[in-house]
C-alpha cells in the first residue's frame, strides 16, 4: 500500500525515512526525494513560502497519483508526504520515497511521482521576499519534465 499524507504541520524527513525503511525490509533499494524551502542570502531570498491546497481535490489527486505510480512499477512501498500552509527556509515541503527490489524501479517511481506532484497536483504556491508576496506560476521545465513519461 502507499502512505500518502497532506500535512498542515512540519514533519521530520529523517524520521519518516527511518520508519519507511524499517517497514520495507525486503526492498533492496529505496530512492527518496526531499524538497525543502531554499535558504539563500541576498535581496531575492525567500523569507516564507505558502502552499494552498483545495480540500476537495488535492489529497484525492495525490492518492490517485500514488495508485498510478504503484501500478506502473514493481514497488514494495511508496511514501508521499506534501505540506501545505506557510513554511520557512529549511522547512521540508515534500518527501517522496519508493522502495523496490530493483533499483531502476525505485528511481523511476520517485522521479515520476515528483514530476506529477510538481506540475499536476492541486497546489498553489506563493513566495515572500523583501518585495512582498508573489504567486508562482508553473515553470516551462515542469511541463517538459512531465512530457518524459
Amino acid at each position, binding site marked *: 500500500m502507499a502512505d500518502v499524507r497532506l500535512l498542515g504541520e512540519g514533519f521530520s524527513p529523517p524520521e519518516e525515512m527511518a520508519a519507511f525503511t524499517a517497514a520495507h525490509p525486503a526492498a533492496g533499494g529505496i530512492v527518496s526525494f526531499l*524538497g525543502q524551502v531554499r535558504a539563500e542570502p541576498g535581496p531575492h531570498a525567500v523569507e516564507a513560502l505558502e*502552499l*494552498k491546497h*483545495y480540500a*476537495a*481535490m488535492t489529497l*484525492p489527486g495525490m492518492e490517485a497519483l500514488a495508485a498510478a505510480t504503484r501500478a506502473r512499477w514493481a514497488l514494495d512501498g511508496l511514501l508521499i508526504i*506534501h505540506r501545505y500552509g506557510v513554511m520557512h527556509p529549511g522547512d521540508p*515541503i*515534500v518527501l517522496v520515497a519508493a522502495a523496490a527490489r530493483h533499483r531502476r524501479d525505485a528511481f523511476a517511481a520517485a522521479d515520476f511521482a*515528483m514530476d506529477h*506532484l*510538481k*506540475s*499536476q*497536483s*492541486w*497546489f*498553489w*504556491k*506563493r513566495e515572500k521576499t523583501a518585495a512582498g508576496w508573489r*504567486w*508562482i*506560476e*508553473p*515553470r516551462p521545465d*515542469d511541463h517538459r519534465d512531465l512530457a518524459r513519461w
Partner: protein
Amino acid sequence: MPAKLVFLGRLEDIVGTGELAVTPGPLEQVLTTLDPALAVELLGERVRMALNGALLGDSDAVVLAEGDELAFLPPVSGG
C-alpha cells in the same frame, strides 16, 4: 440553500475572499452578480473549473444546484 464558489491560488487574492455563497442557477447568470472584470478573469482560458471536486471539461455547461461547490483553479505550482 445557496451554492458556493471557491477561488484558489491568486484568484483568492483577486476576488478578495476564498469562498463566496451565490444563488444557484446557470453559471452565466451567477457570474453577472460579480464584478465584470472579475468574471472575465474567472473565465480565462488558463483557469479550470471543478464541480464538487470533479474537474469539468471546457465545454461543459454549468448549472449550479443548491449546495453545489464550484471551484476556479488557476495553473498549479506545487512542490
